[in-house]
């Protein structure tokens, strides 16, 4: 089947073709979701190289087990679930969950926050660092960086990917009430972090 036709098919049909061993279908799934998955992971780990590795791990895991995909569920939910699990595992291993460019959100004093902060602008030693600083340097990105990883995943799935609360709950394996609480808290923290920008 030509690629042009493949791009018009729904995810479930493309996944079915991938199950039949069609390499073009595998590539189509990557083309559709490489940016959303990479964005989610990048905003969680805030390290381009690590995000690429984790996104690659996500796709390799999903595509090598495409035969386990059940079409009654959304392909994207399955993909995001695996991406989130891999990223959370990575953050746990690296203990990066409290690292923020503005310093740890759990810092009690300004000095403590300064000690744990990362200065992206000053750090620009390599083009990659500069790219990172440009990509994640806006106020809203900096505010997202201050959130707990669980909040980050929820708020991004809700507002960047446009998922419903129910879909987020299914994707992250969380109770619906927990998802609502996380999103509520994330919004509250983001509003507070952005409050100083009010005209």
């Amino acid at each position, binding site marked *: 089947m030509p690629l042009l036709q493949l791009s018009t098919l729904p995810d479930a049909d493309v996944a079915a073709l991938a199950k*039949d*061993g069609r*390499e073009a279908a*595998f*590539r189509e799934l*990557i*083309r559709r979701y*490489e*940016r*959303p998955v*990479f*964005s989610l992971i*990048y*905003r969680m780990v805030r390290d381009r190289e690590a*995000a*690429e590795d984790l*996104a*690659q791990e996500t*796709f*390799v895991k999903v*595509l*090598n087990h495409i035969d386990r995909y059940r079409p009654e569920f959304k392909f994207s939910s399955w993909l995001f679930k695996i991406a989130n699990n891999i990223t959370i595992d990575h953050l746990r291993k690296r203990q990066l969950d409290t690292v923020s460019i503005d310093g740890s959100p759990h810092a009690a004093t300004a000095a403590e926050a300064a000690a744990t902060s990362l200065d992206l602008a000053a750090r620009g030693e390599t083009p990659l660092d500069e790219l990172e600083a440009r*990509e994640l340097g806006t106020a*809203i*990105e900096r505010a997202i960086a201050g959130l707990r990883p669980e909040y980050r995943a929820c*708020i*991004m799935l809700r*507002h*960047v990917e*446009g998922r419903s609360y129910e879909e987020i709950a299914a994707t992250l394996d969380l109770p619906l009430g927990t998802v609502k609480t996380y*999103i*509520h808290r994330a*919004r*509250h923290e*983001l*509003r507070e972090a*952005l*409050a100083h920008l*009010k005209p």
Partner: protein
Amino acid sequence: MNRHLLPEEIDQLLDGEVGFGTAPLKAHVRACAECRGELEAARVMVRQLEALPHLTPSPLFADRVMSCVQVFVPWHVALLDTVRGLVPRSSGARALAWAGLGSAAAVLLAISLWVVTRLDTVIFGADLALQRLRVAAVGAVSDVVASLFGDAAVQALRATGAAGILLSLVVILLTAALAAGALRAVATAGRRR
């Protein structure tokens, strides 16, 4: 409503919830400048979130992923692909192929019908061919046995019939297996040394 909106209530309005519960909240927002400001700030924040761009991985990302993915083609798909590969691409060639297949099918049908109408002749011919085949096979086996064990062995086999032939075959196979086993043991012992 004689109080300001709670954060949860602002969330309800942000999520665009409808129903009786949100009517008093909306009425309050219309009347209260502070809550209106809060709601507007929240909406601005949500708009900023929704405007966040999707970030792009490196250009070789898809190739890197595919180099680690095992593309497995199930046998039925491979078979279908092979069949599809045999189908000509141009419509003229396809028509020609269909015509050829149709002719072959017609010839086969005609032969089948002829066979059915002359079934007795076919059975007689098949029986004759089978008999000749059996005679040729027995002759060949007799020649082999005679050259290996002499004419006496052939006479003995003819006297004992099918049971004798079967027994001889079993003995020959067993001997061959034992010889192969012995050779292998010798070769293994040689390698160990």
